[in-house]
Every structure is written in structure tokens, then in C-alpha cells.
């Protein structure tokens, strides 16, 4: 217990806790959209393409976050455009952008003279290195996303569910889809800080699926995802600290256990009621 209190007194750990709270809020909202539309593969493409931006930023000596954002947003809007045209095979196009991004990243990092960045931290996350500046950006994006979700809740859900019908109702379907593509890109890049490129999609899918065990209502899935994501990620962070294992991996582990425990609990309960 004393150990725990001591831990929370550390600035780096406070930052990590705040990061997890904010990232959970963000990924709960955006992840519900991703899971509902079944576009997990698209978000995978965005995630990996952003690595190209990280590599380029290192090569140019600028903030890697900036490079990742530019690549992620470009990819997200590009995929949205491709799927609205419907001429090219969408899934193949995503796979191309996916691997091209990774390839560019590797090339640029390789070409960068002298200091080579710690690739592992991008691939697997490095939550304990989050600083004040990262936190402020995260807060800004969380607020922006929450505001848009509250203001545009109906159009977001309606255009995700049935874009064609929404068009007949006069909703600005492509505008809303593009806004969501940008938010997806921002949320993914910011979460890479915590989970790393390889693990980040778990935050956008596992808590949502745990929430889906209880409800089929979009709003409630967002709420449920926030709950499961916050509890699971904080537990994961503590587990990581005390067992001295990587945070991202520990978080995924806890989120998955959470899902199965809830699933088993519900199965047992429903078989008892029968």
C-alpha cells in the first residue's frame, strides 16, 4: 500500500496515469466508431502508415509526433476517398499504404545519420516517458473529440450506419466522414505513445467488445468502453510496474482477461437463469 502511494507521488507516474485516463477517453469514443463501422483494418493501415512519418521526421530532425500526424491524416483521408470512389479494391489499397508506411519509416530511420532513435518505443510504446507537452496535446484532442461527438452525435451515428440514406436526408455525409477520418488519425497517433504501433489497436477494439456484451446502443458502448478501458489500462499499468514488464503489453493482457471474465460471468449468469 505504501509502495502504491509512493508511486503516485512521482511526477512520471502521475503523467502516466493522466495519459492513460485521457487515452482511454479518446480511444473509447473513436474505437466505438471503428468497431461499429467494422473498419479495424482501416485503422490498422493508418497506424502503420504513420510510422513513415515518424521516420521522415527523424530524418529531417523535427518532432516525430508531427510527422506521424501528417502521415496518419493523409492516409485516413486517402482511404476515405478511395472507398467513396469504390473503383479500387479498398482492402488491397489499405494493405499497400500499410506496408509502404512501414517501409518508408525503416528507410528514413536507416538513412538518419548518427543517433538512431529507439525504435522499440514506437513499436511497443513508452508510457513512462510522456511529458507535460504531450499531455496538453492529448487534453486538447480529447476535448475536441468529445465536443464533436456531443454536437454531431446523430449525424456521426447515422452516416456510419447508412451513408446512402443519410445523403437522402441532406446530411453532409462526406464532410462528416472526413472529420471522423481526421479524428481517427489523431486518436491513433496519440495512443501510439502509450501502446506502440503494434499494440495500439487493442485500445480501440477490446474495451468496445467488452461493452458490446452488455448493450447494442452506440452511446452506451462509448460509456462502457470508457469504463473498461480506464479500469483495464490502470490495472495494466500497475501490473507492468510491479512485475517490471512493458506497459502496453500488460495493458492488453488485462483488457483481454477483462473481456473473457465478463463473457464467462454473463454465460454463467444466463445458464443459471434458465
Amino acid at each position, binding site marked *: 500500500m505504501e509502495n502504491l502511494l509512493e508511486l503516485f507521488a512521482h511526477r512520471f507516474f502521475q503523467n502516466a496515469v493522466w495519459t492513460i485516463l485521457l487515452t482511454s477517453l479518446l480511444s473509447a469514443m473513436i474505437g466505438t466508431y471503428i468497431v*461499429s*463501422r*467494422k473498419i479495424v483494418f482501416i485503422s490498422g493501415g493508418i497506424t502503420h502508415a504513420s510510422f513513415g512519418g515518424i521516420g521522415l521526421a527523424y530524418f529531417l530532425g523535427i518532432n516525430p509526433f508531427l510527422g506521424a500526424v501528417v502521415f496518419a491524416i493523409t492516409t485516413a483521408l486517402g482511404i476515405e476517398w478511395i472507398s467513396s470512389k469504390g*473503383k479500387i479494391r479498398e482492402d488491397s489499397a489499405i494493405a499497400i499504404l500499410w506496408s509502404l508506411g512501414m517501409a518508408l519509416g525503416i528507410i528514413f530511420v536507416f538513412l538518419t545519420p548518427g543517433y538512431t532513435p529507439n525504435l522499440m518505443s514506437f513499436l511497443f510504446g513508452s508510457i513512462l516517458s510522456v511529458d507535460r507537452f504531450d499531455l496538453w496535446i492529448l487534453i486538447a484532442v480529447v476535448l475536441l473529440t468529445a465536443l464533436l461527438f456531443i*454536437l*454531431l*452525435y*446523430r*449525424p456521426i*451515428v*447515422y452516416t*456510419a*450506419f*447508412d451513408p*446512402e*440514406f*443519410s*445523403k*437522402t*436526408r*441532406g*446530411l*453532409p455525409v462526406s464532410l462528416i466522414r472526413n472529420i471522423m477520418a481526421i479524428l481517427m488519425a489523431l486518436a491513433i497517433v496519440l495512443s501510439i505513445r502509450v501502446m506502440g504501433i503494434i499494440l495500439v489497436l487493442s485500445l480501440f477494439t477490446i474495451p468496445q467488445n467488452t461493452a*458490446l456484451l452488455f*448493450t*447494442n*446502443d*452506440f452511446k452506451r*458502448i462509448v460509456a462502457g468502453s470508457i469504463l473498461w478501458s480506464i479500469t483495464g489500462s490502470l490495472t495494466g499499468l500497475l501490473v507492468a510496474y510491479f512485475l517490471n514488464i512493458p506497459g502496453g503489453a500488460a495493458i492488453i493482457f488485462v483488457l483481454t482477461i477483462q473481456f473473457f471474465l465478463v463473457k464467462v460471468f454473463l454465460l454463467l449468469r444466463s445458464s443459471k437463469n434458465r
Partner: protein
Amino acid sequence: MDSKQPLASIKNVSVGYGGTPVLTDVNLDIYPLDFIGVIGPNGGGKTTLSKVLLGILKPYRGRVLFPSGRINIGYLPQISRIDRSFPITVKEVILSGVSSRRNWWKSLFTKTEGIAEKLLDELGLEGYEDRAIGQLSGGQLQRVLLARAIVNNPQLLILDEPNTFVDRNFEAELYKILERLNKRMSIVLISHDIGTISSIVKTIACVNGTLHYHPSNELTEEVLHIYNCPIDLITHGELPHRVLKQHS
């Protein structure tokens, strides 16, 4: 309203996907309180026709005009296009029909209490408002889509095969509902089942690459032959098909 002026008018329209025309030289006037049955083979272009009317698809040539000003069009898409695993409740689906073309942002926060519930009662689905659509049968979902199509009191209602998955009982009821709605709105009803619809529609359009308008609801094999509309006239009994004249 001047009933001589059409609500919507399709003029010499050619339309398709990716440069390949599906429909060519289509002409059709839809007047107030019309009830047009649209028939035609699979892939004939029925759904494409509805998309042109709705403005979802831009014609290559020709125009779709609304002589009496922009109209509110209700739409029930072909059910196969609906993602039934999407986490959305019946109530939300119906409310998604409420926003209107001109100022959609007003519908962001409009009070919608009771609107969905009232329609559900009328369609025999009382108490279903909080169900997820994934938990509905095909016929129940079809009714929800009908509710969504009419919730905003459109002047023109376009229904793309609303009788898919619907059982005999509700099919008869559906046609009663449509006849009632037809007292205040024009209806375009797409269906394969010419036998059952021909008794409720007023006129018939045959769509197969182009459109042939038949200003009555009586069809014979010969007419269908001339229109190049290979449709099975044989129906599954019971429902009235006085209009069908079978030829040997």
C-alpha cells in the same frame, strides 16, 4: 397544388457506374398522389433509377427536375444493403429519418420524444424502440425501415422491394398502409412480385436498361414482351390478381 405539374420529372436520363450506363434515355413524370409500380428483372436498373431520383447518383446525361420546387423524398432501401450488426436501436434508426434536406443542423437537437414510438405502434411493433436492429427479424426490420422512410411526411415515397422477408399477413397489411399513405403522398414501389403489387398500384413502369411506362395497372404477357420486361406473371395465388390476364 396544381396536379398537372409533376412532383419529379426524369428527362432523357442516362446513368450508370464508372462510365458504363445501366439505364439509357429514361423519361418519367411523377405526379402528386401517383402510385407507380416499378418492375423488371434483376440487374435491370430499378435500384439505380431510385438513386437517380434521390440525387445519390448523378446522371451522365439528362436531368431530374422538380417543377414544384424541392420535395421531401422518403426512401426505403433494399434490405440487403443494411448492416444488421451495426449497434443502433430501432428508435435511432427511425429518428435518422427526421432531419430534412434544407437544414439538417436543426435536427441535431430537436426534441423527438414519442415520434418513433407512435409510428411503431401503427406498424405493429410497439415496445420495440430500444431493441437493437440486430435482434429483429427481417420482416420487423423492414417495418422499421418503412417507419424511417415516412417519419418526415415525404411528398414522395420510394420503396425498394419492401416485401422482402415480410410474411403474408404483414404484406397484406403493408399494402393497406401504402394505400392509406397514398392519400397524401406519391409512391414509387419497386417489386419483383408484379402479381401482388399490380392490384394496389395505379400505373406500372418496366425497367430493363431503359424505362417503359404503362399508364394502367393491367399487364399482359404481350405487353411485357413488347417492353422487353421478362417478369414472371404467375403469382402465388390467394392475393387478388384480377388484373392479370394469363395467356397460354
